[in-house]
C-alpha cells in the first residue's frame, strides 16, 4: 500500500526543511512566490505525515533506521500514536502559512517575507522531527531548531517590543535547553546510550538511582519552561501576543507542546523501569497544573488585549494537560494526550481568527473591538466557536479533555483535582464571555470596526477549517480517543508486559 513505503518517515522532516531552506532562492524577493512555495512545501509535509498516521493506525508503531544502521548504533526515527502530532503540526502549519499570505503582505517588511516563510517551515520541520525522533540527542537538536526559529519569528516584525519579547523568550528558552541538554548528558553518562528505547532497557540495570532522578528532574524542569507551566511561564504572554498572528497560532498551538511531548517521551523511557519512583513528580505536576489553570485564567481576566488573553489561556490549557500527566491514570493520560492535539487546533483557530480581526480593523483591544460581530460576522462567529470549545462546552473538542481528566481524577482517587479542573474551566469562561459580549452585545466605539467586513478568503478559509475542526473533533471524539489509547496502554503496561 502507498502508506507502507518506508521513506515517508525521513521525508516528513526533509520536505519542510528542504522547502524552507530553498524559499529565499525560489522567491527571489517576491513575497507572493515565497508564499506559494511555502504553501506547497507545507501541503506536501501534511500529505507525508498523513501517510505515517495511516500506517500507525493500521500497523502500530514503526521505526526507520538511517542508512540501514540499526538502533541503538544508528540514528532511529520512531513513529508512534503520540508522534501523530507531526500530522497536526504539518496541517496546522499549512493553514497558518495559507493565512499568512495576505497577513504578511500587510504586516511585514517585503524584504523579510521570504525569510519569514523559511523560519515558519524550519519551525514546522523541527516540530515534526521532534515528534518522530527516537533518539535523545536528535530530540535536543530538533528542539533547538524549533526554539531558534521561534525566537526569530517572534522578532520578525522588527518592532522594538517584539525584539524585547523575543529576547526574553531567548534567555529563558536557552536556559531550559541547557537544562534538557544536561539531563540528556546524565542519561548518556549512566546508560551509555542515546536511543530512547535502548535507554529505557538499560535504565533497569543502573546501579544508583540518584543520577537518573537528577536527569529526570532537569529534563522535566527544562521541558516545563518550554511549555510555560506556571511559574515558568513569564516569557510566554509577551512572545505569543506580540508575534504576528499566524506565528502566535504556531507558537501557542504547537511549539509549547514540545515540552509536553518531551515529557511524554521521558515517561516512555523511565515509566516502566521502576528505578525511580515518579510519585513526587506526579504530585508536582498535579499541583502546578492546577495552579496553572487558575493563574492563567486569573491573569487573562485582566487583559484587554485580545491576543494577550489568548496567550494566558494557553497557560491554563497547559495546566490541564500537565494535570492529566500528574494524575497518571489511564483516562487522565488519554485526556491529556488528546488535548495536546485538540488544544493545538482550538488555539490556532482562536489566534488566526483574532489575527484576522486585527488585520481587518487595526485594533487589538477588546474595548476598541466592540461591534466586531456586526462588522465581521463570519470571523467573529469562528472566534466564538473557538471560545466555546476552549472553555469545554460539549460537544466541542475542548470538552473531551475535561471529561476524560475528570474521569481520570476519579479513577486515580483524586476527586478534588477533578473539581479543580472543572471549576477552573468556569473561570476561563469569564474572560471569553467578555470577548463575546464585546463583539456582539456592547455598543461599538469605532465606526470602522462595524464596517470592517470579513477578511479575504485566504484568511477566512483557514479560520473556518479550524473552527469546523473544533466542532468535528468533539463530535467525533471517539476517533482521536481510540487512536491514542494504544500508546497510553503501552506506557502503563506492567513491567515486562
Amino acid at each position, binding site marked *: 500500500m502507498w502508506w507502507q513505503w518506508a521513506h515517508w518517515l525521513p521525508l516528513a522532516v526533509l520536505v519542510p526543511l528542504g522547502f524552507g531552506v530553498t524559499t529565499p532562492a525560489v522567491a527571489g524577493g517576491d513575497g507572493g512566490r515565497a508564499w506559494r512555495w511555502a504553501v506547497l512545501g507545507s501541503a506536501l509535509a501534511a500529505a507525508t505525515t498523513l501517510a505515517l498516521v495511516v500506517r500507525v493506525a493500521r500497523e502500530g508503531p514503526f521505526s526507520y533506521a538511517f542508512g540501514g544502521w540499526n538502533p541503538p548504533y544508528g540514528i532511529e526515527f520512531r513513529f508512534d500514536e503520540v508522534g501523530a502530532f507531526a500530522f497536526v503540526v504539518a496541517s496546522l502549519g499549512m493553514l497558518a502559512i495559507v493565512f499568512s499570505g495576505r497577513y504578511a503582505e500587510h504586516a511585514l517588511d517585503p524584504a523579510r517575507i521570504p525569510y519569514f516563510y523559511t523560519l515558519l517551515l524550519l519551525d514546522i520541520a523541527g516540530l515534526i522531527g521532534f515528534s518522530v525522533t527516537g533518539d535523545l540527542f536528535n530530540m535536543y537538536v530538533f528542539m533547538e531548531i524549533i526554539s531558534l526559529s521561534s525566537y526569530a519569528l517572534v522578532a520578525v516584525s522588527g518592532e522594538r517590543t517584539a525584539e524585547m519579547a523575543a529576547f526574553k523568550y531567548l534567555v529563558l528558552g536557552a536556559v531550559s535547553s541547557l537544562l534538557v541538554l544536561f539531563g540528556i548528558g546524565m542519561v548518556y553518562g549512566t546508560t551509555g546510550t542515546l536511543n530512547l528505547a535502548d535507554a529505557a532497557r538499560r535504565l533497569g540495570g543502573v546501579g544508583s538511582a540518584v543520577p537518573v532522578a537528577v536527569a529526570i528532574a532537569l529534563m522535566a524542569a527544562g521541558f516545563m519552561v518550554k511549555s510555560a507551566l506556571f511559574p515558568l511561564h513569564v516569557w510566554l504572554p509577551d512572545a505569543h501576543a506580540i508575534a504576528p498572528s499566524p506565528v502566535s497560532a504556531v507558537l501557542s498551538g504547537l511549539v509549547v507542546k514540545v515540552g509536553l511531548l518531551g515529557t511524554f517521551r521521558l515517561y516512555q523511557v523511565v515509566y516502566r523501569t521502576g528505578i525511580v519512583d515518579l510519585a513526587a513528580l506526579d504530585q508536582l505536576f498535579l499541583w502546578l497544573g492546577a495552579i496553572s489553570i487558575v493563574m492563567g485564567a486569573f491573569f487573562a481576566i485582566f487583559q484587554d488585549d485580545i491576543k494577550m488573553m489568548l496567550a494566558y489561556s494557553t497557560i491554563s490549557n497547559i495546566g490541564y494537560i500537565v494535570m492529566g500527566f500528574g494524575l497518571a491514570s489511564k483516562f487522565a493520560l488519554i485526556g491529556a494526550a488528546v488535548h495536546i492535539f485538540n488544544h493545538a487546533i482550538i488555539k490556532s483557530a482562536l489566534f488566526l481568527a483574532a489575527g484576522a480581526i486585527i488585520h481587518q480593523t487595526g485594533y487589538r483591544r477588546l474595548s476598541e473591538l466592540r461591534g466586531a460581530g456586526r462588522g465581521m460576522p463570519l470571523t467573529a462567529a469562528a472566534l466564538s466557536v473557538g471560545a*466555546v470549545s476552549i472553555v469545554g*462546552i*460539549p*460537544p466541542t473538542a475542548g470538552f*473531551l479533555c*475535561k*471529561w*476524560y481528566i*475528570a*474521569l481520570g*481524577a*476519579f*479513577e486515580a482517587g483524586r*476527586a478534588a483535582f*477533578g*473539581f479543580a479542573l*472543572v*471549576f477552573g*474551566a*468556569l473561570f476561563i*469562561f469569564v474572560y471569553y*464571555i467578555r470577548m463575546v*459580549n464585546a463583539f*456582539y*452585545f*456592547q*455598543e461599538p466605539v469605532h465606526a470602522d470596526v462595524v464596517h470592517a467586513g470579513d477578511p479575504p478568503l485566504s484568511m477566512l478559509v483557514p479560520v473556518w477549517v479550524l473552527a469546523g475542526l473544533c466542532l468535528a473533533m468533539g*463530535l*467525533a*471524539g*471517539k476517533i482521536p*480517543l*481510540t487512536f491514542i*489509547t494504544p500508546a497510553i496502554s503501552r506506557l502503563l503496561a506492567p513491567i515486562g508486559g
Partner: protein
Amino acid sequence: METVDVRVLLAPAISFACSGLVFLMGRNVFWRRFWSLGAATLKLVVVMSMLPGALRGTTYVWRFIEFTPGISIAFRADALGMFFATVSSTLWLVTTVFAIGYMEPEHAKVRFFGFFALCVSTTVGVAFAENLLTLFVFYETLTICTYPLVIHEETPEALRAGRKYLAYTLSGGACILLGSALTYQVAGTLTLSKPGILPASADPRTLAILFTTLVAGFGVKAAIIPLHGWLPSAMVAPTPVSALLHAVAVVKVGAFGILRVVYNVFGVELLRRLGFTVPLAYLAAFTIIAASVAALFQDNLKRRLAYSTVSQLSYIVLGAALLTPAAACAAVAHIANQAFAKITMFFVAGSIQRTTGKTQIHELAGIGHEMPLTMAAFTVASLSFVGVPLFAGFITKWYLSLGALESGMWWFAIVMLASSLLNAAYWLPIVYLAFFKGPHGRGTGSGEARLLLLVPTLLCAAWVLVLGTTSDVPGMPFALARAAVEFVFKM
C-alpha cells in the same frame, strides 16, 4: 418494546435546521417567519406522530454518533421523555406565534429567532437523551444558546443578568459533569433507559456525593432555593423568552434532570434505602413556601411570575423526592400543568406590556375592562395555581397530597394547602384589581391585544382547563405520565 426510529433524531434536528435557516435567510421577514412557524409545526407533527406508539408502550431509539468510546450521543423517547417533548414542542409553536407578534418593534430579530429555535432543539435533545452524557451535552448547549436571548436588550442591566445567569448555570453544569464522571466510574454506564443504574453495593459516601453533585447541578436550573438567584434577574429578557425559557425550556430541563437522577440513575428502591431524598423534600417544601412569600412582595408582574415559578418548580422536585407512585405522577404531570398555566400568565404580562406599556401590578387597576379576554385567561391560570378543581393545578396538588400521605409524611400535604393559600394571596388580588376596580383616572382605551398575542394566550388558557378535566381520558398526556411512573416503580 424498543424500535429504532429516526423520528427521535428528527425532533431536535428540525429546530436545529430551522435555526440555521433563520441565520442564513432571516433578514427577510417572510422567510424568518416561514421557517420559524414551519419548523415548529413540523416538529409538533413529528413528536405527535410518536405519541400513539408511546402510549402503546413503544420506545423509539436512535443512536446518532459514538461520542467517546462506549458512550454515544443517543436518543430514546421513553414515556417521561415523550411527555416533556410533547409539552415543549406544543409550546414552541404557540410561543413562536406570540413572539412574532411581540418582537415586531425589537432589534436583532434574526439572532432572536435563530437562538430561540436552537433552545427548543436542545430542550427536546434533553428530553430524548438516552444517557447522562447526551443529556449533559444538550443541557450545556441550552445554557449557551439562552444567553443571547437573556441579554437581548443589550443594556448594562441585561448584561449583568446574563452574567449572573451564566455564573449560576455553568457552575451547575460543572457539578453535573463531575457527577456524570463519578457515575460512570461507579456504575460503568450512563444509560437512562433503566430504573436505576447505580449498584446498591457502592460506597454510601460516594453515592451521597454523587446525589449532591447531580441534584445541585440540576437544581440550579430547577431554581431550588438557594440556587434560584438567576431566575428573577433573567426576567429582563423579552417576554416570549421569559415565557418559553423560564416556564418551559430552561427551568423544566432542570426539573426533568432531577427526575432522571432520582428515577433512572439512582432508582426508587436504592433511594428509599439511602434516604437521600428526605432532605431534598424538606428543601423543596421550604422553596415552595419561601418563594411564594417572596412573590407576595413583588410589584413587577414578571418578577412575581418569576418567584411563582421558583415555587412551582419545587412541586416537581417534591413529587420526585417523596418516592411514591402518586407523588411521581404529580411530578411528571406538573411539567405540563405548570408550563401551560405559567406560559398563559407570561403571555398576559407580555400582551399588557405591549398593548398598554404597563409592567407593574399596581398599574393594572381596571385593565380587565379593557382587555377582558386576556384577563380571563389570566384568571384561569390563577385558579389553576391556586389548585381549584377542574383546573390543571388541582391534579398536581391532589396527587402530591396523596403521595405525601402514602409516604407517611403527611406534613407535606399541609405544605400543599399552605401553598394554595399563598397562591390565592398573590394571584387573586390581581384578578380583583383587574376586574373590580375602576381605572385610576381615564383608561388608556387600548382595547384587547392584537390577535397574534391574544390567540396563543387563549389557547394556552383553554388547554389548562383541558388538562384539568381529562386526566382519566385515555390518550391524553396524563396517560403518558402514568406510563412513566409505572416503568419507574416497576408496576
